[in-house]
């Protein structure tokens, strides 16, 4: 790529449209722009970067003041103001024009961003779109910083922070940042896949399914074993039932008699038990009824006496049967025999009299209740007596009927083997019961077996599903393997590229440094932090350090050029050499280094634009030689107000300009021809 011309319109120091043309001739690759400090050298560098990349204005102080001051001051509040940068360049024999303009509104005497336009045109004026994407192909943003070098602060070039940023920039030429990001992402993606795979938990589910299957199989086995036993029991019962039935059938006349006799014998046993119970109940009831009658009588006597006492106005306190019994305790005959004769009543009355006197209250409620309960008890006992007599009567009747039935059956059974029949009958009943029980158990076992078989089917189905999932799971497993291997490969490539970056830069520096520092031989090694170590130790005085910094710029430019030409995406560009633009790098160099560096620049194959101050010009340009300089420009400074005259010497000639330390300044390009 070759720069043809740059037009700056209302940008920074440049009022209206100002154009500088660059030397396109391979035999005269140098373009020199001379300017005083503040004259616009760095503005040119910033404009070149901006026209390609857009974004923030780089390299200049106060980038928020992009518009030319005079242009801005002459505008009204609310006016739309624009600066435009236009670059013509040649790429593989074809000319292109890129024009980037930024609009502002003047608002409260400030520039307010209002928009930006970008055009990329071919030599016929046809627009190439998308403009930025095509421009990025012409000059990738990661590379542009290795063609446009600010050199005003060479002393800090090797500061650790600057070197760290420089290293990142250089590594980005080799796409190391992409390799590193991809390696990190490959690992993250692999981990993500593995996490998802684990979360499907196929192994655990399969293990559970196998356990379920095992339990179901055990249950089935157990059920079948028990069923076989039960079937054996049923079979045996069936055999016994058949046997006893045969015996009973062959004595069919006696079969019913045996059955009846068995029933009657059970009835007899039951009747005897009932009789025994009824008799025991009657004994108890006799005792209970005696106590009940006694209680009722006693309550009646007490009630009468208390009523009499009440009438006499002497009643008080509360009294119940227990207290009455306590009152009677001295009379053993009365209590033990439940007898209530005249002497006992007299005794009771005397006791009641004294007791009532000692209380003072109304005992009638309690006495009435006791009276009623005594009467109820008597009624209840009487009813129970009646019931027990009925029960006894019924039981005796049952016993009588049973005895008759037994006798009748015995009559029928005369002449038969009663014991055999009885045994057969007992066995028949026993095995019939046993069969019923076995059949019930069999039904239960059959249900359990059915459930176990269902569980087995479920387990087998789960196992099959899990197996299929396992097959599915193989896919992510393979994907994980690819990603892991990719990460490993990338790690190796990153290591190799890191070495390559250092090696290539060292190689370039080793070629440049001896001539820059005017030594026969020097071995330059870069640390991992990019700091150069030169052997033999040259002491690295200020001038040497600055010369080494410029050597680094040229080395980086060469590497960036090589890298740019190796990229496939450079369709618009194709193989080419990018220009080297260096701003203000020479002012700080000693005179001897200026000459050495300038001579080295002559050997560079690319177009070179040097932005120099008057004081830098002397040795540099003379070392290069006017014959190699296609175009030389003076950035003529004008003061728009009342700045003082500024006269300086440029390569021995007096140049007069206006100079003031503060804006407004106006600069225009004036071509000079020495």
């Amino acid at each position, binding site marked *: 790529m070759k720069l043809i011309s740059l037009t700056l319109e209302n940008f920074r120091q440049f009022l209206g449209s100002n154009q500088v043309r660059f030397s396109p001739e391979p035999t005269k690759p140098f373009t020199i722009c001379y300017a005083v400090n503040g004259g616009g050298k760095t503005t040119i560098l910033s404009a070149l970067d901006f026209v390609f990349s857009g974004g923030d204005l780089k390299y200049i102080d106060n980038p928020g003041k992009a518009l030319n001051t005079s242009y801005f001051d002459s505008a009204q509040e609310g006016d739309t103001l624009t600066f435009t940068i236009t670059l013509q360049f040649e790429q593989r024999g074809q000319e292109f024009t890129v024009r980037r303009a930024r609009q502002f509104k003047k608002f409260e005497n400030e520039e307010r961003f209002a928009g930006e336009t970008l055009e990329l045109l071919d030599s016929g004026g046809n627009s190439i779109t998308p403009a930025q994407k095509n421009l990025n192909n012409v000059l990738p943003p990661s590379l542009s910083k290795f063609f446009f070098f600010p050199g005003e602060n060479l002393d800090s070039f090797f500061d650790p922070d600057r070197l760290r940023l420089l290293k990142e920039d250089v590594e980005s030429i080799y796409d190391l940042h992409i390799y590193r990001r991809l390696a990190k992402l490959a690992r993250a993606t692999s981990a993500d*896949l593995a996490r998802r795979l*684990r979360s499907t938990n196929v*192994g655990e589910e399969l293990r559970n399914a196998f356990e379920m*299957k095992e339990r179901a199989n055990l249950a089935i086995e157990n059920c079948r074993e028990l069923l076989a036993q039960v079937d054996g029991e049923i079979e045996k019962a069936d055999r016994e039932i058949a046997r006893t039935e045969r015996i009973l059938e062959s004595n069919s006349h006696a079969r019913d008699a045996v059955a009846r006799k068995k029933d009657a014998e059970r009835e007899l046993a039951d009747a005897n038990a009932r009789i025994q119970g009824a008799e025991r109940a009657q004994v108890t009831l006799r005792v209970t009824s005696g106590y009940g009658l006694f209680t009722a009588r006693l309550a009646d006597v007490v009630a009468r006496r208390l009523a009499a006492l009440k009438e006499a106005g002497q009643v008080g306190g509360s009294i119940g049967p227990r207290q009455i019994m306590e009152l009677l305790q001295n009379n053993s005959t009365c209590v033990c025999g439940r007898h209530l004769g005249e002497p006992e009543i007299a005794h009771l009355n005397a006791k009641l009299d004294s007791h009532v006197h000692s209380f003072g209250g109304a005992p009638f409620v309690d006495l009435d209740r006791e009276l009623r309960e005594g009467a109820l008890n008597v009624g209840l006992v009487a009813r129970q007596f009646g019931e027990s007599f009925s029960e006894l009567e019924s039981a005796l009747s049952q016993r009588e009927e049973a005895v008759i039935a037994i006798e009748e059956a015995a009559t029928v059974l005369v002449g038969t083997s009663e014991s055999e029949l009885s045994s057969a009958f007992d066995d028949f009943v026993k095995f019939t019961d046993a069969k019923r029980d076995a059949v019930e158990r069999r039904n239960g076992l059959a249900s359990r077996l059915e459930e176990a078989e269902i569980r087995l089917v479920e387990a087998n189905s789960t196992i099959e599903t899990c197996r299929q999932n396992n097959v599915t799971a193989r896919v992510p497993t393979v*994907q994980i*393997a690819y990603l892991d291997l990719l990460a490993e*490969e990338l790690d190796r490539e990153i290591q190799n590229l890191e070495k390559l970056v250092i090696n290539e830069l060292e190689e370039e520096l080793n070629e440049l440094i001896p001539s820059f520092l005017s030594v026969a031989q020097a071995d330059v090694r870069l640390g991992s932090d990019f700091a150069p170590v030169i052997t033999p130790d040259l002491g690295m005085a200020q001038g040497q350090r600055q010369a080494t910094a410029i050597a680094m710029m040229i080395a980086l430019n060469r590497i960036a050029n090589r890298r740019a030409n190796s990229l496939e995406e450079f369709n618009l560009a194709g193989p080419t050499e990018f220009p080297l633009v260096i701003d203000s790098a020479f002012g700080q160099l000693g005179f001897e280094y200026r000459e050495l560096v300038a001579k080295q620049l002559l050997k560079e194959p690319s177009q070179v634009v040097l932005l120099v101050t008057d004081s830098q010009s002397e040795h540099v340009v003379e070392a290069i030689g006017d014959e190699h300089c296609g175009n030389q420009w003076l950035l003529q400074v004008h003061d728009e107000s009342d700045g003082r005259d500024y006269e300086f010497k440029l390569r021995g000639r007096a140049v007069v300009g206006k100079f003031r330390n503060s804006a407004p300044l106006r600069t225009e390009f004036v071509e000079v021809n020495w």
Partner: protein
Amino acid sequence: MDFDEDETEIQEQGQEPEIDPNKMAILKNRLFRHVAQNLDASDAKLTQELLDLVRGEIQD
């Protein structure tokens, strides 16, 4: 019981899948270009996109 311990180990132990160098090269190129063109995207977004690309490229 036909419980096979190895059967549940497929995911945990993993079998040694065969890596096809051609597939690997294609995958790498694809992922590299995608990351290069989406450097501003977040890691989370890129991880998901890479996952989709890997699934697209690598089938068992």
